[in-house]
């Protein structure tokens, strides 16, 4: 049991703890936007901990150093793709018109759409006059 294995195992423990925290956020949060916010962030962090920690642990146990290369490849892939899928899902939820929780105070996308609508209405007569 050397230092590398201990560090890797601690990372795996932290990662699985964040996994269970993300599932808890999935249960506790009031609407779909809050659920996605909490669970995606903590699940991504947990995956990084578990996967990189497994690679360190395997090298510490005496397996070949190729383990850590492969685990870092998987972790980098998850780090790149998890926010993209979360963003696509939340965009789909907003386009379907799922309402925000009644305690939510800010909706930047609706403000942006309203401002774009106003600019469009202001520009339209100008184009007609020209």
């Amino acid at each position, binding site marked *: *049991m050397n230092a590398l294995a201990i560090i890797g*195992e601690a990372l*795996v*423990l932290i*990662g*699985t*703890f964040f*996994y*269970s925290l*993300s*599932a*808890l956020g*999935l*249960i506790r949060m009031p609407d*779909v936007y809050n*659920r*996605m916010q909490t*669970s*995606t962030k903590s*699940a*991504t962090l*947990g*995956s990084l901990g*578990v*996967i990189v920690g*497994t690679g360190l*642990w*395997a090298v510490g*146990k005496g*397996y*070949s150093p*190729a*383990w850590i290369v*492969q*685990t870092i*490849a*998987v972790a980098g*892939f*998850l780090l790149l*793709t*998890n926010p*993209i*899928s*979360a963003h*696509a*899902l939340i*965009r*789909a*939820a907003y*386009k*379907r018109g*799922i309402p925000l929780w009644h305690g939510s105070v800010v909706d930047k996308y609706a403000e942006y759409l309203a401002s774009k609508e106003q600019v469009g209405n202001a520009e339209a007569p100008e184009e007609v006059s020209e």
Partner: protein
Amino acid sequence: MMGINVYLALIAIATLLSTYRVFRGPTTVDRLVAVDIMTTVTTGLMVLFALYYGRMIYISVALVYALLAFGGVIAFARYLEGGL
């Protein structure tokens, strides 16, 4: 050293709580969010199983699984949005 069983138990708890949201969720996107979390957790589980059995080739299985899950979630999101 707590042993790998503790980590597998924590992953099982996370998967069970996500399954609750899959069955309970009021909207379709809620269920899909829970499935997305379950695929992420399953990728970590596959990497842990690679260490459990001592075979490096299983990590490649986890990589391909993550790729396919990403494509599936993107396709479902586009479908719910109405653009597929």
